[in-house]
């Protein structure tokens, strides 16, 4: 079996374990029927709902039914969104399909994470390369301090401080919400702070290692221009740790967005997760966690595969 195939299967198994864990753990918080109808529901109404939603079946049967549904893209219906109380005769009439709700929120999160990456990748690499190309100078010190600050700051606190400064005091930008580009500036900057610091740190140390190697001296001796040596020769060889870090930070962005979306009332998946948790909307919690986990696991898989591109001699798996 090829390495890639085995990694893909491993990832799918991990995803299945995660989804199953969320399914079973979710049952620990109490009776789903009571959750849906609220404490004022009559016993008759509860019983009717249990029959309609299949909650009287044994748990393993419900689980198989749930997993079977996932295969066809059916993640269940929300307890809260568009939920019609009885008399519903079958499950589809109970509420809005949760997967639709999650997918509707996904573009906003992608936009935010994409904007943060678009800021942090070039800026972080530039800062790291500059520091490594001029070691022990003032620029190096500044980069070191800024990148440590970016890693040490609490993201949601930074967001609140930016709101105080730019939205409340200066009034230049909106405090939150979703709309034109002005709404995206503060959340994207907030989310970018940490990846800028991490990418700058790892770029600096990887480039310091590379720039000390003989091939760099050779290239310089041949008269290759300095920026070409740095950006074409050394940076490509320093790519593995940098790409790994970018991948790590991309998955961190997807979950870090939970807090940033909350602060800025940005209607993405993160805000949806918080809302669904506070409303105990179990199907919605299950679906949004499944989607985010799938995204994060996929990003981690892609990072693994990208090793091959940057360093073909690395033997992956059992060897070629």
């Amino acid at each position, binding site marked *: 079996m090829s390495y890639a195939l085995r990694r893909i299967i491993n990832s799918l198994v991990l995803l299945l374990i995660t989804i199953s864990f969320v399914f079973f753990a*979710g049952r620990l918080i109490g009776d789903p029927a009571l959750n849906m109808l609220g404490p004022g529901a009559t016993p008759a109404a509860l019983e009717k709902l249990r029959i309609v939603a299949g909650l009287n079946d044994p748990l393993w049967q419900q689980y198989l039914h749930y997993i079977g549904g996932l295969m066809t893209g059916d993640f269940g219906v929300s307890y809260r969104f568009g939920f019609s109380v009885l008399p519903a005769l079958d499950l589809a009439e109970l509420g809005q399909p949760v997967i639709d709700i999650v997918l509707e929120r996904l573009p906003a999160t992608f936009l935010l994470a994409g904007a943060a990456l678009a800021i942090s990748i070039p800026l972080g690499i530039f800062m790291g390369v500059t520091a490594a190309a001029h070691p022990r100078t003032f620029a190096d010190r500044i980069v*070191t301090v800024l990148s440590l600050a970016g890693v040490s700051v*609490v993201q949601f*606190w930074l967001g609140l*401080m930016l709101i105080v400064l730019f939205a409340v005091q200066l009034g230049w930008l909106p405090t939150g919400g979703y709309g034109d580009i002005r709404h995206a500036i503060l959340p994207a900057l907030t989310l970018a702070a940490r990846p800028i610091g991490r990418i700058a740190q790892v770029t600096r140390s990887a480039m310091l290692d590379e720039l000390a190697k003989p091939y760099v001296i050779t290239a310089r001796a041949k008269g290759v221009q300095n920026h070409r040596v740095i950006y074409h020769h050394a940076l490509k060889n320093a790519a593995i740790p940098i790409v790994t870090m970018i991948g790590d930070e991309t998955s961190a962005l997807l*979950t870090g967005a939970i807090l940033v979306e909350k602060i800025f009332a940005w209607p993405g998946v993160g805000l949806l997760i918080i809302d669904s948790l506070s409303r105990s909307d179990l199907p919605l*919690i299950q679906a949004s966690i499944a989607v985010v986990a799938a995204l994060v*696991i996929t990003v981690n898989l892609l990072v693994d595969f990208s090793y091959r591109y940057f360093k073909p001699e690395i033997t992956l798996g059992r060897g070629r």
Partner: protein
Amino acid sequence: MAETLNTLPPSDGDESRQVRIGWIHYVRAILRDYVTLFALAFVVALVAFTLGADFLAPHEPTGLNLRDRLLPPASTGRNGDFYLLGTDELGRDQFTRLIYGARVSVSVGVLGALLSAIIGVTAGLMAGYHGGLLEDIVMRLVDGMLSLPSLLVALFVLFILGGGFGNLILVFLVLHWMVFARMARGLALNARGSAYVQAAVAQGCKSGRIIWRHILPNIMAPILVLFTLEIAVLILSEASLSFLGFGVQPPDASWGLMIAGGREHIRSAWWLVAFPGLAIFFTALSLNLIANWARAVTDPVQRWRWLAPHRISGISQ
């Protein structure tokens, strides 16, 4: 070779003038490095305030004083009380609350990191030294759990179990032991082939003795560095989870919870959000700086630059 790793290179090329590295070199190195010195001073002060909160806090943590509500930093109340960092919506002194909040935030970080380290290092050392099926299982688990979105899993588990100090530490243990396991396994793998372990094996040491008495002391330095970094990571995570309402629960106060409480007054009383965040920031920054420094002075190849009797120009982290 071992001798040269524990000595400093002679300053004038005279081999007889080699100096063994002692604690005095570390003290001198840290006194010379103002940034690390500041970080260390901050952490020492933080620990002192955390342990001695009852003696050092200027006010009562729950001392309501409704006439002195929402006073800005460095103001004096009606009774002549001085509030260094201002007061909150109930007239409680914010500096005092920060000190008591530090108790919770710091102990969650330290306890969480300590338990993760114990479990993770044990699993990693066993896996790395014994190899085989054990290693396969541990590393499969480590790789799998590391590729999960940890904040999201933490949120969900705390939603099921409920927040609070104990559950928070439990969640951190479950989600962070892998970091230590991965590192310890790599270090144990390296150590297994080294001469000192081979010598111990040849003398008939049992594997438990080799792991705990021979390998562990030799790999302590990188593990302590990671431990320091993990405390910072956990303090940041605690703040996030508590801010969202899934971590520490009132009446316990942590820094993250204080930011959440101050958020309602953000337009009129910025200091209620600013100072708890700064406390977290300086704590995490100090721990990062100390970890960087510790990594440098415990690196056998690099450390002479820091420990040399004379300042060597142009060292930086």
